[in-house]
């Protein structure tokens, strides 16, 4: 019988964890780092803590994961780091970035930067999964789960020397309702912050960027959206000075409304944008900021 352990590595993942558990249609427990509600339909809410490198964390999770057929977590750089190592420790199969569940052993996921949706059949359990919550219906709330605390006692030889987390004060990109993104033409970090950041703050939006913008130091790396960056699913995605490469599109396809501002009327981004404005972003974006 299938039984899932769904992991929420941060409190903002708890709802997504329940959405996946409910969509799987099998009993599930939620292991959560940080706070989580207790009415998410889980059998047990298991609270855990520990901010340690992947080797120790995966080792600790291995003990908790025993007895489950599915061990899943919301996709993030952190979960990919840890969950793939956990799969290795369990000698298990892994399916990354699941967007739909056909049955407890058949999943859909994007490949080739989202140009193709593949159906993956799991041939052996347990299976380790990361999933994108945007693909799943909001979980039904109700009932109270039992709660317990797990102490993760894993060991590892990696030491953390330093952390430089940039607190932007803006919403989390992967959960934001609005995202304003900029590309290569933004020139430098100051211009990017002023033009893209200015509109974002007016909207209460998160800030995103293309790889080209990040690589040239215009935007911080954690803002990269796309195949190899973050996947966003906001109500509104504003792309300013972004050409619309396959790799960038891979990260924004789940947005409800995409607005493109680009001075080239033939830019590929217009082929997917719901609303397109052919204009110089240095005129249009400040004008938007001012008129909002």
């Amino acid at each position, binding site marked *: 019988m299938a039984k899932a352990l769904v992991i929420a590595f941060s409190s903002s993942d708890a709802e997504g964890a329940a959405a996946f558990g409910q969509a799987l249609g099998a009993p599930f427990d939620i292991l959560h780092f940080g706070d989580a509600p207790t009415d998410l339909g889980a059998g047990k809410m298991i609270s855990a803590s520990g901010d340690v490198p992947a080797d120790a964390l995966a080792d600790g999770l291995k003990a908790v994961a025993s007895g489950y057929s599915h061990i899943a977590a919301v996709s993030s750089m952190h979960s990919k780091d840890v969950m793939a190592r956990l799969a290795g420790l369990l000698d*298990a199969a892994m399916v990354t970035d699941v967007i739909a569940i056909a049955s407890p052993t058949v999943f859909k996921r994007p490949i080739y930067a989202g140009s193709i949706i593949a159906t993956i*059949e799991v041939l052996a359990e347990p299976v380790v999964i990361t999933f994108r919550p945007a693909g799943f219906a909001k979980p039904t709330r109700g009932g109270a789960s039992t709660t317990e605390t797990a102490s993760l006692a894993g060991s590892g030889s990696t030491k953390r*020397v330093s952390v430089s987390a940039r607190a932007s004060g803006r919403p989390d990109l992967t959960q934001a309702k609005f995202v304003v993104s900029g590309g290569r033409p933004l020139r430098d970090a100051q211009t990017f912050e002023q033009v893209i950041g200015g509109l974002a703050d007016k909207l209460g939006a998160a800030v995103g960027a293309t790889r080209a913008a990040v690589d040239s130091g215009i935007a911080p790396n954690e803002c990269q959206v796309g195949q190899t960056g973050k996947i966003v699913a906001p109500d509104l995605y504003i792309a300013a000075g972004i050409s619309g490469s396959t790799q960038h599109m891979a990260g924004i396809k789940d947005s409800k409304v995409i607005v493109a501002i680009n001075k080239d009327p033939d830019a590929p981004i217009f082929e997917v944008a719901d609303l397109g404005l052919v204009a110089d972003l240095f005129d249009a974006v400040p004008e938007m900021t001012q008129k909002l």
Partner: protein
Amino acid sequence: MKILVPIKRVVDPYAKVRPLADGSGIDLTGQNFAINPFDEIAVEEAARIKERDPSTQVTAISIGGPEVEDQLRKALAMGADESILVESTAEWDSPSVADELAAYLKDNPTDVVIMGKQATDDDNNQVGQMLAAKLGWPQATFASKIELKPGEAVVTRETDTGEETLSLPLPAVITVDLRLNEPRYIALPGIIKARSKPLNKVAPKTSPRLRTCMTGVESPPSRQAGKRVGSVDELLAELKGRGVLNG
């Protein structure tokens, strides 16, 4: 210092790919192939480490059919000392690739494995972490800076919120991100010179034990081009009209 760089041959990352009409797989007709861009960054990094310390030995390895020779030769041209083709036309999923690489590493002592964080065809982002786990080695994924010292790797890695720096005792597995370096351009003489470097073909030490398989593919629902607006005012009116913005 011995460095192993596993590489995968993938469809040109800038090409358009489509499903076969019957949905049984990817239409590969007419496609060009390349080293997975992340693996190219890994080869480049190993080549730079060797340039700084010529006693470094760099081996590129790939599991695949005879066609992967092209990519392994390119790795030699970029600076690897030898390439190994683990020749197999079978299907290998991530745990099987990790098992085979682990078997190679058990027989061939190596200080550090440097490899791509993900292959741009399957977008799995799995093999490096699985390999590290199977060997019981520490790992640093998504590296944007690597410093190797005797017995230690100091790696700066990209995280969801910024960066962090880890210290790992060697041996270790490091997977690389886009901003680690920019791979060199290889001119023709380099590729010709690489012909004198060894490219060894070996049989796999393990047989793939598939834990997942792809049973079909389809195109994603396509987004339609929407409406062109002529001004910022019109844009804001549309957004308000659609209920995306208040007002």
